[in-house]
Structures are given as C-alpha cells and as structure tokens.
C-alpha cells in the first residue's frame, strides 16, 4: 500500500509540474506562433531559439512593483489571482494522462484521481474559475476592470450551457461521468469525434470562450477596456492571471483530447501492447505501452494548443451582441439538436451511422428549407 501511495504522490506532483511547465512554454509557443504567422522570427534572445524566454518573462514579473491601488479592496484584490490560479490547477486532477502502470504488482492509474463524477468536477472547477476574474475585476475599483469581469461572467455562463449540452451527448454515449471510462470507451480509433462531429465543434468553440481566448476575449479586450479585468494588476499578480489562462488552455486541450480524440488511445494500440508485452515481459511491456499512450495524449494536446493559438492569431474578436447571439441563438439550439440526434442514434443501435444520418437530415433541413422561410430584407444600398 505504501508504494502505491508514493507512486500516486509522484504522479500527482508530476501532473502539477507538467501543467505549470506546459503553461510556461505555452507563453513561448504563443509568441513564436504569433511571430511565424506574422512572418517574423519571434523571441530568440534568451538561450538558443529563445527557449529561456518564459523564465526571463517570469523573472521580470517577479521583480516588478507589486502595486495595490489605494481605493481597491485589498484582500479581494489579492484573492482574485489566487483563486484564478488554484482553480485552473485543480481541474487537471481528474484527467487521465495515461492508462495504468504496474508498480510492485499493483495497477495504478496515471491520473490524479479517478472519481466517478470526473467531468462534473472539471465543470464545477471551471465555473469557479470565473470567480477569480470576477473578484479581481470588482476589487480593482475601476470601471474597465468591472466591465471586463462582468463580461467574463456573462460569457462563461452563456457558453457553459452549450458546452454542457454538447457534453451531455458524450455522456449519453458512454453512460458514465468518469473521464477515465469515457476515454476507455474510445478504444483504438473508435473516437467520439467520429460520432459527434458537431458536438466536437461546439465544445471546441465553447472551450475557446471558457479560456477567454481570442474570438471570445472580450473580458480583456485591450482596445475597449484597457486590459479588462487585470487593468490594475501588475507584477506576479498579473502573471498569475496570465498563467492561469494558459493552464486553462492546457486543461481544455486535455479535456478536448480526452472527450473527443480518444485521450491516450491510438490506432493499433492492441498490436503495440501485445508486441511490447511479448518482448519486454508483462510489467515493463505494460508500462511502456502506457508511456506511448501518454505520449499520444500529449501529441493531441499539443495539436489543440496549436489550434487555439492558430485561431487566436487568425480570427478577430466578436462584438458583444454577436457573442451573445452565437451562444444563445445558434450554439444552444444546435447543441440541443445534436443531443436529440445522439439520443435517437443510441436507441437505434447503430450510433455511428445514425449520428451522421441525423446530422445530414438536420443540415438538409437547415440549409435547404430554412432559406424559404427567411424573410427577404432589402439592404440600404
């Protein structure tokens, strides 16, 4: 039992360290990808190819003046970034970063904890995350910060609906709230994205909104609100806000990869598993197969992080009314339709076929019949 505890502790610390490290290097990746998309070279002064840039940035933030405005609510002002950071880190606890490893004859999950309400935990923590922004924006005693905070809150509430409903379709398919069993249900290449293409798009869009990333970065829209909720923040307090955003992005990518791209599953995994067990023995082979699975998951996470950044440096920000229109008038109805289609397809016994049939029917109705009822408007010019 002791070894299990020790190994578990190592795994938990490793997950914590990895999320921090990922967030650190996401800042670097963000700058390099931004530079490449804009035909520039990007940061390259600190270390070879600038790989020490995140450390330099962090060091800079630590040495800046830790300023609290006179009219700010001091304790809430300090609490804000702390809440944002801790909630961001908490949600990685239930994500399965690999299958199991065998240590001292016992199977241990490569996961913080495998609770049976895992995905609910993530959602709870993510909705808590907006408190960090809200508290920080309110405590700053500045109208722009408050605007940013209120925008963040309303945006998170609006997009959580569509996110939750598109997630319901996944839960309907798997019959479990545990992230581990959702991932295990997508063995090999039997990934949920093939059953839920529309759900995937909805979930991706919503996670962009939940991370406050670019098409939805209204909370910190710099040309309207100075810097939004962190206008009054400086030094490492602002660093924590920025950092929590990047940790959130990592977690969102991990959740997306786990729910839709099969987590640590990859095509041909049974063949690889048998080969490894055959040549390295039961224990080492199993652990090696798990390591390959973890690597696959990280490749998927990197893909999503790249996608997030790619989107950020492509798409302009939504107007506020567009943001609300998209959430309430488009994504939520579409998510409900998707849920109905999934339910029907699950009942039919051939979910893969009937999901696509359902989507095709929906598309035909929407694109074929809807324009007939749409009233013709004459434009001004």
């Amino acid at each position, binding site marked *: 039992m002791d070894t299990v505890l020790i190994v578990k502790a190592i795994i938990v610390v490793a997950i914590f360290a990895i999320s921090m490290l990922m967030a650190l290097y996401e800042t670097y990746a963000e700058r390099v*990808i931004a530079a*490449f*998309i*804009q*035909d*520039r*070279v990007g940061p*390259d002064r600190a270390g070879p190819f600038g790989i020490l840039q995140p450390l330099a940035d962090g060091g800079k933030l630590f040495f800046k003046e830790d300023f609290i405005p006179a009219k700010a609510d001091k304790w809430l002002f300090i609490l804000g970034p702390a809440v944002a950071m801790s909630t961001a880190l908490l949600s990685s606890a239930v994500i399965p970063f690999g299958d199991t490893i065998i240590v001292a004859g016992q199977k241990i999950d490569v996961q913080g904890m495998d609770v049976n309400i895992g995905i609910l935990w993530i959602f709870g923590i993510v909705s808590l995350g907006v408190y960090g922004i809200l508290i920080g924006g309110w405590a700053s005693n500045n109208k722009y910060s408050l605007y940013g905070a209120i925008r963040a809150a309303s945006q998170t509430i609006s997009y959580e609906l569509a996110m939750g409903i598109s997630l319901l379709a996944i839960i309907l398919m798997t019959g479990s709230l545990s992230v581990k069993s959702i991932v295990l249900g997508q063995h090999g290449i039997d990934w949920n994205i093939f059953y839920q293409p529309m759900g995937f798009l909805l979930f991706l869009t919503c996670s962009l909104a939940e991370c406050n990333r670019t098409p939805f970065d209204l909370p910190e829209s710099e040309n309207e609100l100075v810097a939004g909720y962190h206008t009054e923040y400086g030094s490492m307090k602002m660093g924590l806000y920025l950092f929590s955003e990047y940790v959130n992005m990592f977690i969102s990518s991990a959740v997306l990869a786990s729910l839709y791209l099969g987590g640590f599953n990859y095509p041909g995994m049974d063949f690889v598993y048998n080969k490894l067990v055959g040549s390295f023995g039961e224990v080492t082979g199993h652990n090696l197969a798990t390591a390959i699975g973890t690597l696959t998951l990280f490749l998927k996470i990197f893909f999503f992080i790249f996608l997030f950044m*790619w*989107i950020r*440096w*492509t*798409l302009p920000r939504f107007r506020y009314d567009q943001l609300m229109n998209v959430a309430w008038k488009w994504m939520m109805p579409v998510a409900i339709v998707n849920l109905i289609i999934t339910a029907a397809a699950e009942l039919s016994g051939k979910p893969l076929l009937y999901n696509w049939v359902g989507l095709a029917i929906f598309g035909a109705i*929407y*694109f074929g019949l*809807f*324009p007939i009822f*749409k009233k013709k*408007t004459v*434009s001004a*010019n």
Partner: protein
Amino acid sequence: MTLTNRSRKTDNSELSIVENTYFPGIFKGMGVTIKHFFSKKATIRYPEQKRYLGPVFRGHHILKRDDQGRERCTTCGLCAVACPAEAISMVAAERVKGEEKLYREEKYAASYEINMLRCIFCGLCEEACPKEAIYLRHDKFVPVFTSRDQVIYGKDQLVEDMGDRYLRDAWTKEDMAKLWIKQ
C-alpha cells in the same frame, strides 16, 4: 484613380445562409494564416545574421594605403573642408629620409582624427579626397560606444591594415546591379 491594384469593392450584401455559420470565413482565414506560418520570414536574427547592405553603404571610415603599403593621405585638408559636420581634424608633418616606405608623398598626416559623434556618414570626405585616401567602408559599422573617450577615432583605428585590405565590391552601377541580383 486607384492607389493600389489590390483594392476591392466593399461587399455590403447580406450573408448567405452558409456564410452565416461563419465557417467559410473561418476556414479561409485559417488557410491564410497557416500559409504565412510556413512562408519565408521577413525578419532575421539580427546580430547573428546580417543582411548585405549593398556596395555603396557608407560605414566605418578607412585611410587607404597604396599597393606598397604606403599611406596615401597627404594632409591636404580637403576632407576637413568638405565635411559639413566638421568632424575631421588633422596635423601635417614632413616626411624625413628613411620614411619613404611609410608615406607616399613628402607630406603626411601625423595625426588624423574623426569625431564619430559629429560624423553624419555623408561621404563627402570620400568625394573630396584627391589622393583616394579616405573611404567609407560598405561592410563595417562604427561600433556602439559607451563613453566619450571612445568617440574620437585616431589613425590607429582608421589606417588600413595591410593583412586585411579593404576592397569595394562594386564601383560602377552595372556591377552593383549584378550584385543585387545575386543577393
């Protein structure tokens, strides 16, 4: 009159039902950015990589020697007169017997100083020189200085080193055009 050939008429028509899903626009935009992601970069890693500035770039000054290693400057002072920034000062001296290997003519510069804080790198000294002695190098900058006593460049920093002679890449317009094509 059109100012560029890339201007397009603004499309104010209403979005079609497919366009209204935003997807065609999003995919088009993502395509544009990924194309730029892999395209050649417009910037370079400057101090390590340097661009060729052309054969007529006016950089660090150099006092040329002739083929036998004798200094060409005769301290006529035309460069100092031509200099709009009054950056050049010099002291003349007469060549004595036995110095024929060092100086080409009877008069030479005992000291020749350029104040780099004043110099505007206009190249008029180069044009004024009747002895083809002073040039502005095309391949070397005057380095950054941090204190005033590094500013005045004497003969030790200006006279050409015979082991590392300075040659200009191109003297005529045609040569220059060829060089630019090669770049």
